[in-house]
């Protein structure tokens, strides 16, 4: 399964997520030592799965981190043009999206907490809610991008190239960074759907919540990135 997900996922998120769920059992010094040493088979080790997921999140943070450095450099160089560009973004829409994503993180966390308490039906509903919020986020995002396209503002457009250099860079970064973030939202939705299926089959249950927890960690990261993107792009104007 890990290859098939990884195949259509350039960031390799799926591979880390799904493989983190099933890990081999070697000889842990600490705990979970059940006296058998089947090495090359996948074995449930939630601690290792969590370590793997956190390491993967580090790579995501650095992936976006590099873009934030680029943003910082150009903000320093073109401070006023960035403010000009920022004032053209739609704050109510951005703020709504921020609220939506924050709420979706809440429903995600609730889903894990509910499943751990054995309330599977409600946990599934919370996952559905998370998916719905994620979809709403993307729809609003699409309207925002569409409005920009209508005003002929998109990378490489003639109208954009007539603007100041700072604004060209600002909108270039806007599309790259929010686009990469939206891609992560879409991947996250795929992972949540996958978690839903595993939950329906009972592969995720109150005793084995690792996959759902890792899904939650990933979702919170997507949320966290947006929490930085929103003020940096929308509120500096």
């Amino acid at each position, binding site marked *: 399964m890990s290859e098939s997900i990884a195949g259509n996922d350039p960031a390799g998120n799926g591979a880390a997520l799904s*493989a983190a769920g099933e890990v*081999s059992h*070697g000889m842990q*010094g600490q705990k979970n030592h059940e006296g058998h040493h089947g090495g*090359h088979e996948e074995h449930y080790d939630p601690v*290792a799965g969590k370590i793997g997921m956190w390491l993967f999140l580090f790579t995501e943070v650095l992936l976006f981190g590099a873009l934030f450095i680029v943003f910082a450099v*150009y903000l320093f160089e073109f401070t006023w043009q960035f403010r000009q560009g920022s004032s053209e973004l739609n704050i109510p829409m951005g703020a709504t999206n921020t609220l939506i994503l924050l709420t979706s993180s809440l429903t995600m966390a609730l889903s894990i907490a509910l499943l751990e308490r054995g309330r599977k039906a409600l946990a599934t509903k919370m996952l559905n809610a998370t998916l719905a919020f994620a979809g709403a986020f993307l729809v609003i995002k699409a309207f925002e991008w569409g409005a920009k396209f209508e005003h002929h503002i998109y990378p*490489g457009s003639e109208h954009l190239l007539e603007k100041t250099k700072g604004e060209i860079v600002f909108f270039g970064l806007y*599309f790259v960074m929010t686009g990469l973030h939206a891609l992560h939202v879409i991947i996250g939705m795929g992972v949540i759907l996958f978690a839903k299926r595993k939950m329906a089959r009972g592969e995720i249950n109150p005793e084995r919540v690792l996959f759902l927890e890792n899904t939650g960690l990933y979702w919170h990261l997507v949320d966290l990135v947006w929490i930085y993107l929103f003020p940096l792009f929308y509120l500096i104007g």
Partner: protein
Amino acid sequence: MGQPIGASSAIASPETSDYFHAKKGILSWLTTTDHKRIGILYLGSILFFFLFAVGLGVMIRLELFSPGEQFVDSQGYNRILTLHGITMIFLFIIPSVPAVFGNFFLPILIGANDVVFPRLNLASWYFYIFGGLLALGSVSLGGVDTGWTFYVPYSSDTADNVYLPVFAAFILGWSSILTGLNFIATVHRLRAPKMTWFKMPLFVWSLYATSWIQILATPVVGITLLLILLERVLGVGIFDPAKGGDPILYQHLFWIYSHPAVYIMVLPAMGVVSEIIPVFCRKTIFGYKFIALSSLAIAGLGSLVWAHHMFTSGMADTARVIFSLLTFLVAIPSGVKVFNWLATMYKGSIKLDTPFLFALAFIFLFSVGGFTGLIQGALSTDIHIHDTAFIVAHFHYTMFGGGGLMFLAALHYWFPKMFGRMYKKAVAKVAFLFFFVGFNCLYFPLFLAGMAGMPRRYADYPVEYTVYHRFSTVGSWIMVTGILLMLGNLVYAFFKGRRAEKNPWGGATLEWTVPSPPPTHQFATDPDVSRGPYDYSDEVKDE
């Protein structure tokens, strides 16, 4: 996969129970989750790409044999140069020691039966192969002339197909990240009972430090490469001065990864040296903790020196001085390692076996590479030698004389364990001699040529430089003879070599306590780690 060993066959030949012969057929290899078999998959594919890139290197040397055009024009030369760089860096040196020997031996050295995520491990190999095929595919589309660094604005403007190799590098980066992630989690979770952090072999320490660099540095180059692609497809303008972008920023982002990447290449090699030296000196390693922690120090400091690749690119003088200072600081943990190795040899009972010869050569070649690195780290001298053949000589001494050499060393050190057979030691020593002599003939003249002003990346040169290039090209023939002899000897041993015993070198680390080749499940019970990885005190008492 889940079938217990021994159940498959009643024939009690030793070959039926080891990992290599446990299952038959190509499919059993392509779907394996056994870390040892995945190591072998990497070994085969990495050797293939290595020989491919060596061939390209020989072509470069042949073109430079005489002034003027020999058999390719400048454009063709640039493409050969680029492919040589991409293949050697992304497909050979970066994965070589960690992916082959790390996969095979890291779990054994800490007393585990596998890495913690076996399926992810296999997925990493598929990423590697996919990236490798993309890189090879770029040849069929005419090649790329940007150099392996893909500097903008050239990489966003050139007519050559940059998409494939850039995407290949991106994919290979994820392969590297996933391997690093796996190793860190494995070291944290699967150490045998009583295998404390400071009882781990130093090779494990070096892999641990390397894995952290892989995880923290690679994503930066990943996103940077994506930005090149976006630049080409959409014309975003982040690196295009006409649209307000800054090409120097690309160089910063690129080297933020690619300088730490040189430590990805050399730290595991240093780990191999730390394994080999005590075994052939029959003496405990000197300064264990310092060697272990110096790996982490190199990993940390190495992340803060990237701009020394850009001293002539245009930067504030304050920044240049700081980066120069930090560059000099990296020499300290590197020096700590070298002096500890030398101190280990002092009064040791030295046996000049093949792997030990490699380790000695590493200390010599890496020191030459390291000291010439300081010449470039100094701002004033760097202006003179920047972008000359001096740089080419320097990084071949560190990368090939360091990382590449220790890949071959590890192959000779662990070959009897991996395949259960011993190669002809006399042939291996002769091959090593060819390699060492050829290596120095090949690269040392380039220091002199560079000092005399020979620029790098040129297919042609004035006649004054002929003597350096002739010497260098002849050296490449000697070195390649050595490599082919070396690998031929190993291939012969793989089929016909005499059976190797469990512990042919008398090592004290855990891999020597399991059969050669190891069974699929190497540890049926928890291994005894009371001896310690470098404890030879019993043998001293016997004498």
